[in-house]
């Protein structure tokens, strides 16, 4: 059977809404359109009930004891902002120090930069060559003034899963709060706020087959009770932590998406991992000088980030234009800088420019994987025939010994 083009292999950027999710959402746009805050009529009650069910489902996905600990937001960027700024502001008297890592998402890093401007101090922990934070580094970085540690569950570029359990042990022992941006890992790798001692969690629907524009923040209510200063003021929705009319259809979608992850996430992970490994071996067995970025062991099942030496990432993306992937190459970003995540791993700029991220997900098929593996292999060979660096490499020239003119 011929595969249908284009092929979507960029599941870290977003995911399609699962038809089962959409089905549950639909009535809440037209028939059950009430405001969940309307306490005095049936339309409101209906909406409120739907929100309550969604809240429970999201709580279950992360192992939260109390659905009240779930605060609905517009997405993980907002959740990250509220978690960091809200906690920093509330605990200002206790301290002004935060700890995070260099490979975090921009929603964390740029929020930290903002906090630094406002007088807070931030430690950016380095990561090992496999992208993991060393829990010992967290321990050493904690000061008497540290109020919050923020480490993501899994990285969006290289899929590296962080040792949250180990870090949670340390932060709990030292009485420091732990936040985790968990968007890439939820439902895909083990995660439980109680077992792992996580105090705040950023969640988004669109990375797990739910709608764009809906997120949540888990805020622990006991042992310890986490307090934060709301960043959006208004009608006092969401226990005062996030004002604004609840987007009921989207929340229903997030709830259903979370529920599907609880039901199917494990089995789905096994299937996707099988496909990922099929893609990896089919490419790496047929091409030399291909490098895996990140950890093989501690990795999201659907993530494959490869550097194809002597081939530039954007050039390769153009060659496989019927396949949607993403690259750490500078050329794909406005900044003209290669991926800061790959840099943090110690991957050289030349290999960062040669990187491609394949993201596999719920609707990826074996036929697609085989098609992509064949296409990538063929196109990398073609581009290498076009590459002066490949020719020099074949002639035994050490590219590091060449005096390149940086431009």
């Amino acid at each position, binding site marked *: 059977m011929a595969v249908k083009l284009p092929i979507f292999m960029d599941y870290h950027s977003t995911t399609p809404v699962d038809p089962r999710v959409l089905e549950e959402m639909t009535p809440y746009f037209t028939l059950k359109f009430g405001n969940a805050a309307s306490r005095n009529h049936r339309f409101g009650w209906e909406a409120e009930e739907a929100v309550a069910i969604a809240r429970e489902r999201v709580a279950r996905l992360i192992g939260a004891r109390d659905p009240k600990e779930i605060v609905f937001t517009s997405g993980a960027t907002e959740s990250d902002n509220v978690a960091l700024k809200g906690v920093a502001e509330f605990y200002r008297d206790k301290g002004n120090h935060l700890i995070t890592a260099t490979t975090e998402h921009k929603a964390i890093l740029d929020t930290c930069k903002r906090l630094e401007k406002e007088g807070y101090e931030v430690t950016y922990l380095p990561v090992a060559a496999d992208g993991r934070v060393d829990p010992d580094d967290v321990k050493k970085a904690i000061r008497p003034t540290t109020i919050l540690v923020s480490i993501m569950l899994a990285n969006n570029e290289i899929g590296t899963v962080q040792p949250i359990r180990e870090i949670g042990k340390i932060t709990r022992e030292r009485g420091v709060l732990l936040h985790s941006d968990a968007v890439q890992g939820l439902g895909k790798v083990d995660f439980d706020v109680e077992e792992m001692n996580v105090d705040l969690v950023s969640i988004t629907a669109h990375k797990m087959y739910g709608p764009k524009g809906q997120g949540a923040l888990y805020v622990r209510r006991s042992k310890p009770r986490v307090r934060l200063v709301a960043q959006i003021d208004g009608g006092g929705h969401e226990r005062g932590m996030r004002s604004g009319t609840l987007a009921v259809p989207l929340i229903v979608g997030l709830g259903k998406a979370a529920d599907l992850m609880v039901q199917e996430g494990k089995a789905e992970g096994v299937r996707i991992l099988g496909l990922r490994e099929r893609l990896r071996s089919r490419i790496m067995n047929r091409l030399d000088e291909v490098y895996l970025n990140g950890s093989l062991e501690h990795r999201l099942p659907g993530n494959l980030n490869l550097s194809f030496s*002597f*081939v*530039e*990432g*954007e*050039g390769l993306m*153009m060659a496989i234009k019927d396949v949607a992937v993403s690259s750490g*190459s*500078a*050329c794909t970003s*406005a900044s*003209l800088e*290669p991926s800061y995540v790959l840099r943090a791993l110690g991957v*050289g*700029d*030349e290999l960062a*420019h040669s990187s491609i991220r394949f993201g596999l997900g719920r609707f990826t098929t074996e036929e697609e994987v085989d098609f992509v593996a064949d296409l990538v292999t063929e196109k990398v060979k073609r581009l290498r*025939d*076009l*590459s*002066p*660096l*490949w*020719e020099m490499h074949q002639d035994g020239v050490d*590219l590091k010994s060449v005096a*390149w*003119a*940086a*431009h």
Partner: protein
Amino acid sequence: MAYSNKVIDHYESPRNVGTLDKGDPGVGTGLVGAPACGDVMRLQIKVNSDGVIEDAKFKTFGCGSAIASSSLATEWIKGKTIDQAETIKNSQIVEELSLPPVKIHCSVLAEDAIKAAIADYRKKQADRLRAVPLVAERKA
């Protein structure tokens, strides 16, 4: 980002890909860019005794626009004298390929590659001229 049809055409069927013999005194080689910056172009010219570029070859590591810029450059300089080829400006490449602002550096690199190849050719010629009398003296 959407590529122009001309970029796609050059990218999919690049003209004059290949390698000329560096040892040939009539061949000039320009190697510009850096792997760490994400693009490297090697452009070679073969110049005949009339100073005309009778062949040009390139290989490029880079994005589609970089490959297209160097492909176009080889097409343009073939049949021109080295003096004519030297006058090619990156802005002409930008215009021909409809490159967006973020891709202007690709055209700059192509212009640099032409200039570097010509400079290499001229240096080789100068070295030869200097070398010839030495040989003659020794014979005398």
